[in-house]
């Protein structure tokens, strides 16, 4: 009898440990999603005392979408391009740091590479604005080298926004890839070479597959925040470079047209989730969700 009571209490322990965090996440993360959905189906006039009333106003969705087609395409194009460039920068870099340099330099180099992380996001974006500004020495240099035309500019272009996104989310790409490369048992690569694999084959057949979880995690951790960002487009882009994030922000916070903004956020969420889901299907899940074997 007493034993049974004890084992019952033991079984309650995990729930007790879990409860505060789980309740917090349900109340302030899951439930708000429901209310955003509810808000997106309301009608009313912004900035009036009556506010908005709920009446299944699906027109908000078509309104939110109409004329925004290219903005939506642009958003995912920017986020996708930034993710690919970040991957191209991060992988060789992480590889070099984990396997090619003197172990003594590993930590300081890793530090240097994720240093952007240690400065404020907004301030480093503004620093890029300064670097890319029309009269900055770097733009002058590029003009002298005729890489960009005499009347060309870098600020307020798609390239500037993509460069900013790449820069700001690069640490999210580097860290998981580095972690996965560092974890590789290098004797596996040696074994591949002993079995007459060329360096390239050993990389493609051994190293790359073993580091895929890191790549998958890095791609997700870069793409997701990049697609919802509006800071880079705000500071580095021009009038024609606005992303959906800018639209949601101004509709919510400047025009106070909550239902339309909520509809747009919902569409954004749905698109990102769909893309992530498709991607995970192709790339395997463990990397992101965490494997099950952890429990003892």
């Amino acid at each position, binding site marked *: 009898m007493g034993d049974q009571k004890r084992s019952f209490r033991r079984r309650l*322990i*995990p729930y007790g*440990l*879990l409860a505060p*965090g*789980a309740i*917090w*996440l349900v109340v*302030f*993360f*899951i439930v*708000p*999603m429901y*209310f*955003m959905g509810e808000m997106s189906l309301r009608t009313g006039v912004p900035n009036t005392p009556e506010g908005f009333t709920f009446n299944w106003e699906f027109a908000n969705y078509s309104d939110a979408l109409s004329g925004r087609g290219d903005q939506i395409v642009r958003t995912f194009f920017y986020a996708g391009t930034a993710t690919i460039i970040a991957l191209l*920068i991060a992988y*060789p*870099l992480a590889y*070099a740091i984990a396997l090619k340099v003197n172990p003594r330099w590993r930590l300081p*180099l890793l*530090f240097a*590479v994720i*240093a*952007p992380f*240690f*400065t*404020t*996001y*907004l*301030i*480093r974006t*503004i*620093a890029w604005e*300064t*670097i890319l*500004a029309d*009269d*900055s*020495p770097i733009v002058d240099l590029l003009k002298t080298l005729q890489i960009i035309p005499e009347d060309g500019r870098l600020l307020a272009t798609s390239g500037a926004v993509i460069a900013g996104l790449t820069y700001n989310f*690069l640490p999210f790409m580097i860290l998981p890839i580095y972690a996965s490369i560092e974890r590789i048992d290098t004797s596996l690569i040696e074994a591949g070479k002993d079995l007459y694999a060329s360096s390239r084959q050993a990389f493609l057949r051994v190293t790359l597959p073993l580091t895929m979880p890191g790549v998958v995690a890095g791609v997700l951790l870069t793409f*997701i*925040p990049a697609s919802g*960002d509006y800071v880079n487009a705000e500071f580095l882009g021009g009038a024609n470079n606005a992303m959906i*994030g800018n639209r*949601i922000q101004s509709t*919510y*916070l400047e025009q106070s047209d*909550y239902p339309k*903004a*909520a509809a747009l*956020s919902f569409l*954004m*969420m749905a698109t*990102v989730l769909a893309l992530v889901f498709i991607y995970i299907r192709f790339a395997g899940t463990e990397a*992101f969700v*965490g494997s*099950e074997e*952890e*429990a*003892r």
Partner: protein
Amino acid sequence: MESATATARPAVSAAPSRIWSWLRRNGFKIYAGFALAYVLIPIGVIAVFSFADASQNRDHLAFAINNGFTLKYWEHAFAVPDLNDALLTSFRLAALATLISTVIGTMMALALVRHRFWGRRASNLLLVLPMATPEIVMGASLLSLFLIYGISLGFTSLLIAHIMFCISFVVVVVRSRLIGFDRSVEDAAADLGATPLETFRYVTLPLLRPGILAAALLAFALSVDDFIVSDFNKGTTETFPIYVFGAHLRGIPVQVNVLATMLFALTVTAICVVLWQQRRAERMASVRPEQEV
């Protein structure tokens, strides 16, 4: 191919082939050098600006460099009251958010790694979702909740939001520390007559400390740095990033660069301390009875 040509006509192509082989050998380093420059230049710009005498034309890099260096903004680092207030708000917010999210996140990590229970998979999913959601959606949905219930926005709404997005990251960091945890030390403590609570207090917690510290540091950094979620739920409260965003329209005081540089130095120091702690803990954990025999 390359080497074949080189042996056939050594006099003509020796130089290019040497350049080529040098590039092949050092390509990685050159590449890494460029990547490092890309990563570090903006930070350098921020630091340079904090010393630039830019009384009239502060937006222009060339101007800032040509105008020479001054220490006056460092001497008067705290001369902008609004900026100080915003920074203090950010620190207070981050401290509270870190404290609360670290405690409940560590509890969650313990539950997830140490116990098998019904609902474990669902809990894992609940933790992953916030990390898979664009910040703007989190900010907008939380604002919808607050608006519908007529909850006034300000410090409390910001605190709620910051704890929310910190929890998942805390759990991930602490969990990774827990997975490599050698539980035989706990068994040893129990064998020596320690109660479960004593074991936790004197064995588990000290060994987990570096993980918890790293998680807390991450939470603090996320909170201080957050702009998007805060932008939606700020009300009239100004955090450091929100102040910078607003100030950008009317001209950012140089002190922002000074404080940003200070923050950078502080963060780097804090991380060094955590790493040092971690190494120490690893040494502690690696001293095992069987090695002493």
